[in-house]
């Protein structure tokens, strides 16, 4: 099973991932991270683990792994 991980602390709220997500699975959360940004959140029901968010993200927020092969948060 594929897993998408979000490193919220790295998110700078640029929105590039949200704009390019093909399934509208991403949005800004209402929380603030320690840098004062509202980090992205993933709607697991919509996410197809396509990796476009990873591709567009300048800050290494996303990680997609298969069956726990790779991943885990900081």
């Amino acid at each position, binding site marked *: 099973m*594929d897993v998408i991980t979000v490193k919220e*602390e*790295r998110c*700078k*709220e*640029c*929105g*590039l991932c949200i*704009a*390019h997500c093909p399934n509208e699975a991403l949005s800004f959360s209402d929380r603030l991270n320690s840098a004062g*940004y509202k980090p992205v959140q993933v709607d697991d029901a919509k996410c*197809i*683990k*396509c*990796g*476009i968010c*990873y*591709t*567009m*993200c*300048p*800050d*290494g927020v*996303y*990680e*997609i*792994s*298969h069956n726990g*092969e*790779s*991943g885990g948060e900081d």
Partner: protein
Amino acid sequence: MAKARKVPAIIDNPMSFCPGCGHGIVIRLIAECLEELEQDQNLIFALGVGCSSLLGGGLVTDRLHCPHGRASAVATGMKRVQPENTIVAYQGDGDAYSIGIAETINAAYRNENFTMVAINNTNYGMTGGQMSWTTMPGQVTTTSPLGRDCEITGNPLKFPELVASQFDVAFAARGAVTSPKNINKLKKYIKNGLEAQINGEGYSVIEVLSPCPTNWKLSPLNSMKRIEEELIPYYPLGVFKERKEN
């Protein structure tokens, strides 16, 4: 099944670039290529001065912060004494093309066997958005407050085209980070440049059109839009010098 995607270890750190800055995407692509080419533990970066130097803090690899504009000369010295290492000069447009144009162009002129990645965001980012040699005609910067007047400042420089047409280099290309499609193309260019170096084919340069939302005073999304609508028509994407083997 989707492909596993993980930020390469050598850059898996928080970076201090502004929100929406393209540097983070480019350096990740470089690191991915290095990993795929098994060069991530055989690597020395010659870093420019400017936003490119922000890379230093997060990069877990050998890297030297070079004097302003001189990264291509420093990279030359590194590669000459340690040809077995992969050397990447990583610079911005102000660094590589203005203060460092002599070192940059002469490395290409000698067909020095390293790879330069130049981030073209059409201004001096770190010092607060001054005009650079790649600033677009009419673009307002802090030193071209009425818009760049090319009559008195010259026309925006197209470095990859210049070296491809004038010098015997191995590979020259320009990419952009505006969309997943362009990012994937850019990664191919970077990989080609690094492969050219590893095979000893000579100098490779990859210029990247990259957003500077902070100094452009545009949102990250509108910055990408500006690149698509305004920059790419002037700075075409593509390969200007193909590798001989390909």
